[in-house]
């Protein structure tokens, strides 16, 4: 893994992979999580704010990565803060991704138990998810990018048709009043929405494999905007048609919202089949990335082969995923991960960027690469 990776992700695919990585659990729970904390229907404004902050984080990650072209965070952190501290940072990210992927396996199992298989033991669904997930992940990053591209159009079509089909239930009144208590409460509950945006820090890893990584700002802006738009529409539609009070009481508000679609014509009556399918696909795309990054970090840190690491992580993930006793504990884990993802995407990259600028650390061949491209 010492040699430079060959960039293969086009900017267009970067956008898609970025979006599919971020959209995961959040789309099902965001209206409740944000609504509970905020207490006013202004959740959609908060989503926009979160989107802006996420974009800030993306920018930080982007500038940090571009100081070390064709290298991931796992490679270059030791150059900024030294070998030991670098290993600690790598380890933090690995643990974050491990917990995140285990959490995904658990959440999907909970949702599946709630909506599809109420008799099947949760252990079966967790294990099935992990095993299916690890199969693709052994294909490496190219396979992950491809499958994201594969699922993305399906996701878009389904999400937007949900919005269209539910149009008649939407009442603008449910979103009023706008900013009843001024902008201050918005700022105080930003942290809770941030968990839906966790995953933006994948830029730190993907950019090493991206063609023309220097021009990645626009595709990433587009990606962040797309995520924000999808979340905003979801939140607006859910709260607009279910009211905030009801949303707060529902575990999976978006699912309930989809369930109430009453569109004439047999199968569209039960649109949740389509929705849960694409939601699971998106859970997979998020899981692929997190599992890959966790095992990639481990394989770099200890010099092990990546495939055995991936396979070896399955039992570990299974244990972590089985740790929470009930849904409440899962949700607590989710809040915790929301906080750690702020560190992963904003605080650590920010500090690293600051240090690398301060100490003048950058990759030697960055200038060469730049000169080579211009020449």
């Amino acid at each position, binding site marked *: 893994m010492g040699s430079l990776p060959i960039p*293969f*992700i*086009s900017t*267009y*695919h970067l956008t898609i992979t970025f979006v599919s990585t971020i959209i995961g659990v959040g789309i099902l729970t965001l209206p409740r999580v944000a609504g509970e904390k905020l207490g006013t229907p202004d959740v959609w404004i908060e989503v926009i704010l979160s989107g802006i902050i996420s974009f800030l984080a993306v920018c930080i990650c982007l500038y940090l990565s571009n100081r070390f072209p064709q290298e991931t965070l796992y490679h270059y952190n030791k150059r900024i803060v030294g070998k030991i501290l670098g290993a600690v940072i790598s380890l933090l990210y690995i643990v974050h991704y491990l917990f995140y992927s285990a959490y995904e396996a658990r959440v999907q199992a909970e949702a*599946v138990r709630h909506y*599809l*298989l109420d008799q*099947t033991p949760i252990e*079966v*669904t967790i294990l*099935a*998810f992990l095993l*299916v*997930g690890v*199969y*693709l992940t052994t*294909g490496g990053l*190219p*396979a992950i*990018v*491809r*499958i994201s*591209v*594969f*699922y993305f159009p399906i996701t878009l079509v389904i999400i937007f048709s949900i919005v269209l089909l539910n149009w008649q239930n939407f009442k603008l009144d449910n979103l009023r009043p706008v900013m009843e208590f001024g902008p201050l409460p918005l700022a105080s509950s930003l942290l809770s929405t941030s968990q839906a945006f966790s995953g933006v820090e994948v830029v730190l890893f993907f950019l090493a494999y991206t063609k023309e990584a220097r021009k990645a700002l626009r595709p990433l802006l587009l990606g962040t905007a797309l995520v924000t738009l999808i979340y905003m529409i979801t939140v607006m539609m859910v709260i607009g048609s279910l009211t905030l009070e009801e949303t707060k009481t529902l575990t999976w508000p978006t699912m309930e919202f989809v369930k109430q679609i009453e569109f004439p014509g*047999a*199968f569209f*009556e*039960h649109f*949740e*089949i389509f929705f*849960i*399918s694409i939601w*699971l*696909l998106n859970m*997979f795309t998020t899981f692929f990335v997190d599992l890959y990054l966790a095992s990639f970090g481990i394989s770099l840190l200890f010099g092990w082969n990546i495939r055995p690491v991936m396979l070896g992580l399955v039992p570990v993930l299974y244990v972590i995923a089985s740790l929470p006793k009930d849904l409440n504990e899962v949700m607590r884990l989710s809040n915790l991960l929301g906080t750690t993802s702020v560190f992963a995407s904003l605080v650590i990259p920010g500090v690293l960027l600051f240090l690398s600028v301060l100490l003048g650390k950058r990759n030697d061949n960055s200038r060469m690469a730049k000169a080579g491209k211009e020449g």
Partner: protein
Amino acid sequence: MMRSSQSPSKELTTSVGHNQQLLAELLGNSSDLVFQELPLAASNRKAIAVYLKGLVDQKFLFNRVYEVISSQLLNDAGENQRPYLERVNWFVQYASTFAQAFHTTNVEQIISELLHGNTCILIEEHAGAMVFGTSKEKSRSPEEPQSEALVRGPRIGFVEDLTENTALMRRRIKDPHLTFDSLIIGRRGRKEVVICYLRGVVNPDLVEEVRRRLKAIDIDDPIESGYIENYIQDHKYSPFPQIQNTERPDRVEGALLEGRVAILMEGTPFSLIVPVTFPMLMQSPEDYYERWIPTTLIRVLRYLALFFALFLPSLYIALVSYHQGLLPTKLAISIAGSREGVPFPTLFEALIMEVTIELLREAGVRLPKPVGQAVGIVGGLVIGQSAVEAGIVSPIMVIVVSLTAISSFAFPQYAVAISIRLLRFVMMFAASVLGLYGIILIFVLITSHMVKLYSFGVNYAAPYASTQHFSWKDLFIRAPLHLLLKHRPAMLKSLDRTRSGLSKKKGD
């Protein structure tokens, strides 16, 4: 090489008797080996014509070859009163000017020529043989391919004869860049295989890779091109066909023009095309002959057929046995009503009908055509009807299975149809264990497998899920040709990217 151990001297000598014995030994004294003595008139010397009965064109042999021999060699009389050996040399020189005739002393080559239906002439006191090309081109005349029928398109297909097939391609593409590279595969069968491509269009690395893989094949006899396919494919344990096979020269033509490589083999009308991606297997040559709007509709229909063939029975199983709540209420009631009295679980019910259909299909293929139809009627109507009346399966199950069967006939390539058939059963089992969730898991597995699959360096899911270039023009819709044919597919990395509209551009 393999028979070298038996004969004492593997060289041709001046003794014609020894030479005759040598050839007879090398060919195992086969009953179809003919030694025809041609006595030289004045002397008691002789020449011997050796050939394999049935392989040679007797008429040509007698009319032309013997005529040459008798006029130049046998005739001792008249002005031909030169010494014998001089006359032999003269004959060899004279005969070598003939088309498909040459002189050789190599025994292995002689054996190979004999096996190809050529005749060799052994001459007394001469340590060599004259070979005449007398092989009989016994091939059926090209007819419309059975396995890939089209409404519109050329009514011609490949035949078993390789020369005929290469000629067929040459007649279709009159470009000097059309290249045939020949090699022999099989230690015993020794089948000639031709790599066919358009120089200057195809990516040379691809041709090199094809050649490398073909050369690496080490088997006794590739009986059909399926053997070669099995040896050169990337993933042997995948359910998907990674190499396209076709009987249609026009399909090969289209592939060559896209920058792909075709492999034609002696003895089979099925040629192989590499690389291939899954969306390519969903295309039919006819797509490009008809107008683009109806074609687009047909293509969407084909993907719908793919969805039905893959998911319909498993969706039925999942919805009926796990998620009745997800069905529209009226439909749920009518399904429940129709399933009343059916003693089996849905999976078993579906399996009964699916297996019956598969049996019918298999039987229909094996039986002669008129009988096959009768079996179809008996199977489809009688069994379906009576199974429902007997209460073994529900009528809706019969509808589901029939729709699935019809859908699986809608694929333009048989190889895809059988892959999907297999995957359908996997889906059905998954659906019976984990319901809709199982279906989604298998879907993720299949798509994961697809994006991990490569066919000669091209990703199997390209251009749908490609990291290089997403092309919508020839995927679900078939864009009008003036848009479609601007460039060759990017995933093939061909040398010459432009296909049309060159006159509008500045010369390159």
